[in-house]
């Protein structure tokens, strides 16, 4: 059966940059990570519950089942695991897929939710588990997995099962925490998604963390401006958008939203002026459409203001 043999043994070796740990890294184990034994097909909610409660929020696994389980697929999607994390006001952050990145998060006290394929490529068995430790002496990974509170898997087996998900894993951050290895763009997107999910308070804290990490970060300033705008704090919003424009005079998005903040304060002429500068720099048709919406909005606001009660 030559064809079969290739199927079953077709495991390439793990690249060294994935499997290597910097020398002198000690074993680490987060023994306090809670354990939620999974029900049938519910490894997603169970893993998520462990990671979220480890971040200090009490969770009900059933609520998470309602958030991530897809009956028609008998499982949970990766993006919904992230989305459900946002729904409780925590920031999901996808880590680099390396043993070192895993270790760094564990050392910072955060367990890592990982996606493994416990089967083989042709007979997949996709499974979410929580990495809670690395035993560097025995070359083993410690997991909360399925119905096992402390599963010990050899590093080699773990990496092989993890490789099939492209080494996918994420952490659950409190809004005032930054990841151990933070990638600016990835972090910005994560916070923007939290903001879009309506978690205003947590997003505000996270944007402020971004500014402390990267002073003057325009995306964070812009996000804070949008949050103030959504709360009706127009002068505060104006200040944030102006700060973005000061750093990047060609930021169409910042000028557009600045125009709205100004118009809402009755400063229509200034608003129109910002909008016309924005228009000069708008090359994307979708952005141009937004600018047209803004112009209509300003016209409407000024008309309403002109009509006596």
């Amino acid at each position, binding site marked *: 059966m030559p064809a079969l043999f290739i199927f079953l043994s077709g495991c390439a070796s793990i690249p060294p940059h994935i499997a290597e740990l910097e020398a002198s890294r000690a074993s680490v184990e987060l023994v306090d990570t809670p354990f939620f034994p999974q029900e049938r097909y519910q490894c997603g909610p169970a893993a998520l519950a462990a990671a979220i409660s480890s971040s200090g929020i009490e969770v009900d696994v059933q609520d998470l089942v309602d958030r991530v389980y897809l009956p028609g697929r008998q499982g949970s999607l990766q993006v919904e695991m992230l989305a459900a994390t946002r729904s409780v006001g925590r920031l999901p952050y996808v880590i680099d897929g390396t043993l070192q990145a895993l270790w760094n998060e564990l050392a910072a006290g955060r367990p890592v939710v990982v996606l493994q394929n416990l089967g083989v490529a042709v007979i997949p068995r996709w499974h979410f588990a929580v990495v809670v430790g690395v035993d560097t002496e025995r070359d083993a990974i410690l997991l909360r997995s399925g119905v096992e509170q402390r599963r010990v898997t050899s590093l080699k087996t773990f990496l092989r099962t993890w490789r099939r998900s492209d080494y996918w894993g994420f952490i659950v951050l409190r809004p005032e925490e930054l990841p151990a290895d933070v990638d600016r763009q990835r972090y910005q*997107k994560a916070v923007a*998604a939290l*903001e879009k999910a309506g978690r205003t308070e947590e997003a505000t804290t996270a944007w402020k963390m971004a500014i402390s990490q990267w002073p003057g970060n325009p995306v964070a300033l812009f996000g804070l401006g949008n949050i103030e705008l959504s709360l009706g704090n127009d002068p505060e919003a104006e200040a944030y958008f102006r700060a973005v424009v000061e750093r990047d005079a060609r930021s169409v998005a910042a000028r557009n939203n600045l125009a709205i903040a100004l118009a809402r304060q009755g400063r229509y002429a200034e608003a129109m002026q910002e909008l016309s500068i924005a228009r000069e720099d708008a090359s994307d048709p979708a952005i141009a459409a937004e600018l047209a919406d803004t112009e209509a909005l300003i016209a409407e606001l000024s008309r309403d203001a002109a009509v006596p009660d």
Partner: protein
Amino acid sequence: MKFNCLRQSLLQVVSLAIICTGFAQVSHAGVIETSVLADQEDRATHIARVEVLLASAEVARQFEKLGVDQALVAQRIQTLSNTELLLLQEQMDQQVAGGDALAVIGTVFLVLLILELVGVTDIFKSI
């Protein structure tokens, strides 16, 4: 036929509900979302509002088809980012679902493999 009509109108209601939630979130037409700026560095074009709305409606339809309780669909859609919505709209089927289920095709394969190993079948023999 009747069922189809009903389904269609239900879908429209759900889509409308999602669209309304979307606008409520932004609070004003014209405000450019933060994710636009966050995505800008590695995306050539801005994801238009209408694209997000269409993706939301389509993902909602697929979630319902996959058995998600109607009352939960809108909440689940709301916490997905725009890029995640587009990803699901385009390739929900290719997305892996972690849940320990063995795919049917996998199970069949496994049975065939066992049959092959015990010598009952000879399917995998190369000719």
